[in-house]
């Protein structure tokens, strides 16, 4: 192991003077941290909403005002016919149309379930499910004014761990994995392929050092550096983005270490195939990005899907038939036909 140590010391000395590796280990994480922390945001605000108010009552105007107040929606148009509804959605003038039927106020005053129809442009499924969540939230708030007797089951949703659903809170921890993956895979692959390129690999192989000792000595410095890098990102996330730490540091560090060991192994694998640093860089970057792209840390489909699912269950608990939630209308298959309910629920399809 003394030989492995000699390799590790050499590697550290090399990294210190190697601008390219330093760049990968320091600049890339910083860049992504700021990009994700400050620039990228999946929170949806100012959804364009069109209103088709067929009731024209104080109650219906109050409902519209609820939407306007929520800060998620901007009322952009008033529409009066089904043809106009089609038009504003087709022209992308509005993403959501709220249709309030003529007997809305009458039903509410009578304490009967009142119905409204919500049409959401579903060409971006992520946005649509998020918007659906907002719509349900507003409608739920509006329902709370109704006499308690009309409600069958009361729902008080609490979202744990990220109560405000701030995207930074789930993007930045994901970054720890994402950045560590890139730096660990790329820098390990590069460091070994560089030895192949300069011929030092052959020289080392002529020396009485076992492959295990060499590989250990080569990867150890990167493991340490990547672990430090991950800690810095986590510290930055806490200081800069107010990320709360829920759990203990020790197990987090241990599992980051395990994760990094896997990433370093991937880097080693790349280095056995690649013979030039360019190839190694491309391959390593591609492989490092692959899980992110495929599993969607960038575009967290799963997260939205789960949230939407939870809301559906919540709606079911209130005896709302969720049948409209994901059904496409025959005449407009790219839209979700969403039926929500204000007041006590009994939704029907509207046309």
């Amino acid at each position, binding site marked *: 192991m*003394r*030989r492995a*140590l*000699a*390799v590790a*010391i*050499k590697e550290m*000395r*090399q990294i210190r*003077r*190697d601008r390219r590796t330093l760049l990968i280990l320091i600049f890339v994480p910083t860049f992504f941290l700021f990009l994700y922390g400050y620039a990228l945001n999946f929170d949806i605000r100012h959804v364009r909403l069109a209103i088709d108010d067929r009731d024209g009552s104080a109650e219906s105007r109050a409902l519209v005002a609820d939407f306007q107040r929520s800060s998620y929606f901007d009322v952009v148009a008033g529409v009066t016919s089904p043809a106009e509804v089609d038009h504003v959605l087709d022209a992308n003038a509005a993403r959501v149309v709220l249709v309030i039927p003529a007997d809305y106020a009458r039903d509410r005053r009578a304490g009967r379930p009142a119905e409204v129809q919500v049409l959401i442009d579903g060409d971006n499924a992520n946005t649509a499910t998020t918007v659906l969540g907002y719509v349900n939230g507003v409608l739920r708030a509006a329902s709370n004014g109704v006499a308690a007797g009309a409600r069958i089951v009361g729902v008080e949703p609490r979202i744990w761990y990220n109560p405000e659903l701030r995207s930074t809170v789930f993007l930045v921890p994901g970054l720890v994995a994402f950045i560590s993956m890139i730096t660990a895979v790329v820098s390990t692959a590069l460091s070994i392929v560089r030895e192949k390129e*300069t*011929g*030092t690999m*052959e*020289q*080392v*192989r*002529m*020396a*009485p*050092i*076992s492959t295990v000792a060499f590989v250990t000595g080569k990867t150890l410095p990167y493991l340490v550096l990547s672990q430090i890098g991950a800690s810095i990102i986590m510290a930055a996330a806490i200081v800069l983005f107010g990320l709360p730490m829920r759990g203990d540091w020790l197990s987090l560090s241990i599992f980051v270490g395990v994760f990094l060991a896997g990433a370093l192994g991937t880097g080693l694998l790349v280095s056995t195939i690649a013979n030039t640093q360019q190839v190694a860089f491309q391959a390593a970057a591609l492989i490092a990005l692959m899980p992110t792209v495929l599993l969607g840390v960038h575009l967290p489909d799963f997260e939205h899907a789960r949230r939407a699912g939870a809301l559906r269950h919540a709606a079911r608990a209130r005896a709302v038939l969720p049948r409209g939630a994901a059904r496409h209308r025959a005449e407009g298959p790219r839209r979700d036909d969403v039926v929500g309910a204000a007041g006590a629920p009994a939704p029907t399809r509207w046309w």
Partner: protein
Amino acid sequence: MSEPAIVVRDLTRVFGRFRAVDAVTFDVRRGEVFGFLGSNGAGKSTTIRMLCGLLRPTSGQAVVDGVDVGRDPEAVKPRIGYMSQRFSLYELLTVEQNIDFYGGLYRLSGERLRARRQFALEMAGLVGRERELTRNLSGGWRQRLALGCALLHEPAILFLDEPTGGVDPVSRRDFWRLIDDLSRGGTTVLVTTHYLDEAERCDRVAIIHAGRLAALGTTRELKARFETRPILEVRSSDPVAVMSRLDRDPRVESTSLFGTAVHVVLRQRGDGAAAVREALERDGLPIDAITPVVPSLEDVFLDVVDDLDRQVPA
């Protein structure tokens, strides 16, 4: 004399259908400078890689410093030093850090490491420049530093794979002085080269061609093959025409171009010069001079390669 430093018997390495090294047999004596002469791709590096335990022989045997390389490739590594034409140093490390790294690989430490570091620095002429980045050293310094690093663990046998590539003539000469010193100190040196003047400095030379050992001996022994076949040097303003004319002459065995002159190997002793002159003049070819020359190693090399190619048609 003790047992040979290197014993090679029918050593063969096959890559797919390509016989890179084909049944090569030779011995290297202790303390000898043994040259491996051949063109690029002749099999020199493949042979060295097998002797160093980096590549497993397909068949045959190689014993290096008493260790059967095919059987125990790791055991040979502490006994040998290796330096390639790429002077494999870490450019981003200082002179001293490179030495310490290679010292660490061979598990040198404490007093011994200090002594060997000093030796390497002195040999390379880099005393006082320990903290310089290797990247900033020119070819000759790098070469000597790489040699120093290869010698840190005082190996019995030193392998040099085209050690003077890309180095200026003065550095080359200095480098060969170092090799001579090592050899006098008892180190066995096996050096590959395609420089003929370097091969002349070796105690014995093996000429390797297309994976086969074409000839082996001291340069004097190798040149003896021309004892019965004098070589003439013909200087002419039209060497190509001279060559094609003489290739048809029954008294001429072969012709080859040496710079602007033509070397002509005659089939036997006698008054060849006069006959060649007469033949060329009869065809009206321009002649500046015809002189008998002492065979050079290049003549030997070309002759040996021709012989081999005639035996084994490609």
